[in-house]
């Protein structure tokens, strides 16, 4: 009896001082893919957490390099491919081939990876705060028609039509975040981790205290406030597409960066779309798609797609929450 008493006192003393079960946290933030990416890893020892995080960033950097449309990094990256439009089949980096193949497999006409030329037009006008003419957009859009590019998976090549240009903005960051998360998962020392790429987040594992991860969604019209909070468990990814991060205004009209592939103009009707699923890459794809689709159609798609949930705010300030989020989403007051 006395021994039991002794043991209880000893263990509880150790617990109070925090010598036992102390979970360590390691985090690193880097500028990558035109944004800030923060990885936080939890585990028992600092060193393996640091090593795993460094490796995860390396994997992310590889995705960033092959998907960058503005700068050359490798011989077979996206930049090189765009330079060779109209020159027949081009051997591309396996990573790039994988992103293209996977995304094309979704077959949705509201996601078009060949909008490079249209995006170029908008970026040029964004610099001097002017609005492109319909003709300008039409000319650019004509390079993004079906058949603008074809993939040969077996040979590992892509053929771009003359003047066509690819842009992976809809999926690249999500793919990068997912790649980093997969790398972290390879390390058993990492008990839990959070990869935060701003608009793309992935959580793996459970926090030591057992509480769900709390992810806030920014209020699209007030950066100091939240739209709401998601409480999520293991292995979940979330992505938000909004009109409030990258945009410019002309005569009170907001021109943001999410282009409707049918009109070639910024998509209207929705101001924030958040997709929740298991893969950060798939979440990124759907957040862009849900933003572009009319909200009724978007919500219908969510309800009919397995493992996909969403929170959407339309331009009237109405918030739509999918049925599967009932206990997981709290609207901010």
């Amino acid at each position, binding site marked *: 009896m006395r021994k039991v008493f002794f043991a209880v006192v000893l263990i509880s*003393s150790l617990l109070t001082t925090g010598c036992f079960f102390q979970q360590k946290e390691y985090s690193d933030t880097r500028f990558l893919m035109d944004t800030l990416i923060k990885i936080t890893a939890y585990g028992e020892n600092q060193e393996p957490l640091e090593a795993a995080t460094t490796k995860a960033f390396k994997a992310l950097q590889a995705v960033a390099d092959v998907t960058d449309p503005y700068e050359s990094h490798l011989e077979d990256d996206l930049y090189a491919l765009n330079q060779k439009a109209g020159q027949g089949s081009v051997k591309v980096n396996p990573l790039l081939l994988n992103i293209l193949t996977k995304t094309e497999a979704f077959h949705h006409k509201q996601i078009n990876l060949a909008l490079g030329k249209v995006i170029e037009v908008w970026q040029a006008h964004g610099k001097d705060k002017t609005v492109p003419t319909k003709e300008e957009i039409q000319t650019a859009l004509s390079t993004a028609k079906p058949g603008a590019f074809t993939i040969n998976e077996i040979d590992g090549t892509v053929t771009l039509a003359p003047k066509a240009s690819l842009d992976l903005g809809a999926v690249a960051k999500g793919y990068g975040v997912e790649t980093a998360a997969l790398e972290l998962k390879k390390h058993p020392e990492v008990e839990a981790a959070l990869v935060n790429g701003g608009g793309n*987040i992935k959580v793996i594992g459970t926090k030591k205290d057992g509480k769900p991860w709390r*992810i806030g969604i920014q209020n699209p019209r007030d*950066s100091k406030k939240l739209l709401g*909070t998601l409480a999520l468990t293991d292995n979940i990814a979330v992505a938000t597409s909004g009109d409030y991060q990258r945009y410019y205004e002309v005569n009170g009209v907001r021109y943001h960066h999410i282009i409707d592939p049918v009109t070639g103009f910024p998509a209207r009707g929705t101001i924030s779309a958040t997709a929740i699923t298991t893969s950060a890459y798939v979440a990124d794809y759907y957040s862009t798609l849900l933003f572009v689709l009319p909200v009724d159609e978007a919500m219908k798609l969510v309800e009919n797609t397995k493992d996909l949930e969403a929170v959407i705010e339309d331009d009237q300030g109405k918030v739509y929450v999918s049925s599967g989020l009932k206990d997981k989403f709290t609207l901010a007051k």
Partner: protein
Amino acid sequence: MRKADYLLVLVLVVLAILGYGFFALRSNSTNKILIIKHDNTVVERIPLKGVTAETKLAINVQDGTLIVRYDKNGAWVEESPCPDKICQHQGKITKTGETVACVPEKVLLTIEEPQKEAEHDAILK
């Protein structure tokens, strides 16, 4: 159990309470650290408790010089050569976990506090 055992138990309990009190007190007082990063490396780590006056810090960046100002409560970007000035518009950060980033110039300001539990694990932007 002998007398010495009781004594050992007593010592352990006292140590535990002292230790707990020490850590609890330490995290209650402001332990905020301002971290300034440029191009993925930490330029400065400033414990805000020790800041006595408003201080100016110039960082050489791609397009010129970026000016950061900080005091014992927080920090902000006063001037940036970047085209969009989003970082300047973000204003002053004072709370743990808040950040100001100038993406074009690769400068990041964050306030961190050891072992402080934030309300959210992350914010989707």
